[in-house]
């Protein structure tokens, strides 16, 4: 079974996750995490989801707990366990992002947004922000290959690897941004800012269920925010 949410549901979900993480009680956060973990069982890419959780999500959560409860001095937040408090916030956001990333692709997301007939500026910004992350990933991968081809020994040790990737950070960000700038010019020439009415060969309109879920999530976030 493939779960496919319209982008507006995903955006509403993200807002809801933020509110839950920042304003919710531990019980809300636990419920939220349980709900999304339940959903993740039905994801098509659930393997990738769990791989990222195992390699990245769970270790970081553990580190957060240890850092706050064992190493750092306690703050006067009134929570029984400060580590768990922070770890839960982190988990809520992470699981929500992972769910979003694994239910949609940038192109699907863009198609869905386009079908909402938002002003062209919005689409432009969304497309470009996808570009930045996409090119960021591609460039890092290509550069790692290029470094190896010029005698950099990747398996020597992990610190060496980190040391070599660090100076890369700025050039990579820089070139990702400059690529997006060029991409912006290309999109402009494709008429994305054109004032005329657009045609839609393929559309992905939100279904009634999508709309209901969105409204539900937005109302919930609103209530959470008001009655925290």
């Amino acid at each position, binding site marked *: 079974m493939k779960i496919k949410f319209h982008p507006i549901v995903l955006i509403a979900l993200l807002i809801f996750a933020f509110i839950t993480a920042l304003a919710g009680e531990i019980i809300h956060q636990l419920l939220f995490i349980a709900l999304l973990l339940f959903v993740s069982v039905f994801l098509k890419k659930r393997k990738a989801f769990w791989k990222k959780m195992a390699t990245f999500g769970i270790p970081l959560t553990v580190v957060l707990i240890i850092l706050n409860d064992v190493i750092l001095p306690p703050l006067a937040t009134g929570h029984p366990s400060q580590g768990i408090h922070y770890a839960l916030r982190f988990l809520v956001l992470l699981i929500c992002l992972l769910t979003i990333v694994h239910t949609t692709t940038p192109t699907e997301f863009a198609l869905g947004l386009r079908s909402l007939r938002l002003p062209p500026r919005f689409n432009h910004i969304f497309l470009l922000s996808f570009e930045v992350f996409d090119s960021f990933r591609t*460039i890092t991968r*290509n*550069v790692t*290959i*290029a*470094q*190896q*081809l*010029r*005698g*950099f*020994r*990747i*398996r020597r040790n992990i610190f060496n690897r980190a040391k070599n990737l660090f*100076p*890369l950070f*700025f*050039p*990579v960000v*820089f*070139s990702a941004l*400059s690529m997006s700038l060029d991409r912006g010019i290309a999109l402009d020439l494709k008429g994305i800012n054109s004032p005329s009415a657009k045609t839609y060969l393929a559309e992905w309109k939100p279904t009634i269920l999508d709309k209901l879920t969105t409204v539900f999530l937005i109302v919930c976030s609103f209530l959470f925010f008001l009655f925290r």
Partner: protein
Amino acid sequence: MAFVEFTNVGFSYSHNSPVLHSISFSIERTEHVMLAGTIGAGKSTALKLAVGLFAPDKGSIRVDGISPSIPSLYEIVKRIGVALQNPSDQIFCSTVREEMLYGLRNLGANETSDTFQRTVALFGFSRLLDKHPYDLHPAQRRLLTIASAIAMNTPFYIFDEPTSGISKPERESIVGALHQLRIAGKGYMLITHDLAFGMEHCDRILVFNKGILAVDESLPDFLQRENAQGILKKNGLQMPIVPRMSAQLAQNTITAQYPDFISQLRQQQTSSKQAP
């Protein structure tokens, strides 16, 4: 034993579409080889297999007796300098100088190294050394990737599409560099669909067609063949104008189609012979 040796190599990115089928060839350390073929023939894949970025599905590859793989990559790149097809994928330092020194430093040399100075002079980069590579023109960036590979001073080089998108000054730099490599007794392989360039600077031709090695011959022998043009055409390539015309002149086949033209050429030939 040959320097680069492919024995019955097969490779595919996904299960249903093999890129290479049972390719076998061997190249000596001092040979100058061109690898031609249309898009999707498996040329760049062969390069990635030769250095060990991918492992072959079947068959074996040996570079100077080593089997190339990710763990042995360091040993391979000490022997083969590589410039990939897309310059923006392989430039990552903040100045031209750093970029060219990167490989050298990993191999344990530094800025005073003789090869670095010579490569800078060879490519005329002395003015550009402190520039950011992203400020260079795409054509100069391609030159920089080739220069960075040559600066590593390895015995053999593989360049993927070295002449794509460059103008004459850069082309001349590359020609100069290839010439120097030849003098220094180093080998290289050019992966290119610019046949005119490849034929001028190589002694042996390999042609891939849809993952099969269609031609493997010394260039003079290949050009002597009567149907050389037909063989290239069958593999989706076009014979460059110089060898094509000289073949047609030799066979007199140009006369039938272009009587006017051939008589002019003949006249010029005789007058040029008389002139000196």
